[in-house]
């Protein structure tokens, strides 16, 4: 029987380029790891609580190319599907939902146009609206917001951005530590502790999981509401059912 945990979600994150799931370290140096539909189904069967599809090159091309993959993949996945990467307008949200997504994740789009948060929230509800943040540490307890899939610094402070996005009506945050991402050395728990001081929306930790202890540690810190896993799953280091058995 599939195990679900109240107040803590284990999310499988699939970054996609050219119809292939890829994985990098610090959001670059990409390796191919599999076919989106097959991996999504594998993780669904393995008790994933949600699936997150990110278009890894959307900002380069100016738009999200995942709608076809979404349509195909979502046919057999009966857990929430979030799509992100290059989403900029209210129409993009409509297209995403029509293609099989239940939530949209936006980073660059919100940083460049914060009022888009309110626009999406008032039409589709804040719960459909996930703000994705890529954080790079610049000093003790200070992180900078990056956009364009970790390529471009913005000069903005992560905690200030979290506070602003929350006041504009964001429903959820997914925060990726660029420093920890792909390293399998653990989550940046300090980052999430600081973020929790700024907001009461659900926060998903992304970047750094290498073993079950890392996931237990970030859960026990009590500041996040779930984890997004990529490397540990794609490289077959852990199964979700085994992770949940220990949480």
């Amino acid at each position, binding site marked *: 029987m599939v195990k679900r*945990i109240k107040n803590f979600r284990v999310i499988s994150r699939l970054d996609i380029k050219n119809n292939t799931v890829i994985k990098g370290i610090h959001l670059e140096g990409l390796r191919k790891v599999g076919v989106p539909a097959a991996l999504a189904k594998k993780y669904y069967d393995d008790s994933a609580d949600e699936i997150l599809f990110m278009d890894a090159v959307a900002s380069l091309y100016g738009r999200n190319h995942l709608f076809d993959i979404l349509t195909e993949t979502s046919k057999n996945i009966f857990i929430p599907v979030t799509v992100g990467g290059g989403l900029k307008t209210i129409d993009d949200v409509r297209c995403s939902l029509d293609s099989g*997504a*239940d939530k949209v994740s936006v980073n660059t789009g919100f940083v460049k146009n914060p009022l888009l948060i309110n626009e999406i929230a008032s*039409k589709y*509800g804040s*719960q*459909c609206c996930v703000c994705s943040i890529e954080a790079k540490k610049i000093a003790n307890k200070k992180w900078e917001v990056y956009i364009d899939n970790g390529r471009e610094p913005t000069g903005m402070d992560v905690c200030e951005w979290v506070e602003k996005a929350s006041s504009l009506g964001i429903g959820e945050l997914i925060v990726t530590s660029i420093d920890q991402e792909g390293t399998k050395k653990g989550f940046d728990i300090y980052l999430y502790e600081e973020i929790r001081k700024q907001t*009461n929306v659900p926060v998903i930790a992304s970047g750094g999981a290498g073993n079950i202890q890392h996931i237990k540690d970030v859960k026990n810190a009590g500041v996040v509401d779930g984890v997004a896993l990529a490397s540990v799953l794609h490289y077959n280091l852990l199964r979700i059912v085994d992770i949940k058995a220990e949480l």
Partner: protein
Amino acid sequence: MIAIIDYGLGNIQSLKNAINSLGYNAVLTCDRNEILNSSKVILPGVGAFQEGMRNIRDKGLVQTIKDYSDLGKPILGICLGYQLMNLSSDEFGHEEGLGLLPGICKKLEPARGERLPHIGWAPVEFVRKSDWGELVSGHLFYFVHSYGVLFDDNECIDLGVTKFGDREFASFVKKNNIYGMQFHPEKSGEVGLALLDNFLKQEKK
């Protein structure tokens, strides 16, 4: 025919996928005749209450939905769809709903480390013994919402509740032919599909 009401909001493709996987087909429609002639109607929901009611009014669907319900055939509201079936909501100001169910939608009040919106898996507990309660017991379902439905009086209602903050909101409701689910059965894995399947098998009373 199963009709999914088209009022411009909702995770339509997700819902169709779930219905198709159960071996049924559904049609997305806002046509009065199609809706009245359907054997089942689903009011989906991902969106904001005010926008939802505005769209339903603009498309002339208020009376159609009420008339369909009066025929005694099964109708299911999911998440926002379920909220819209009630008397009113305080989201973005006060807004009247369809009035098919006697609940009021109120903003959830988190307590003890809970977050808002309420997003994630939670149990549904029935207030008294029920066939539907058997299907639901021991499982967690996927919720994603900031408002919950509260009933003053739950007589004649099959009622399942979920605790949030210091209150219990109505997460599953059946009143005669009218069904409401605050969680997303189409997104709650196999247990959600089983619940959806049970609804799709219901006949007119």
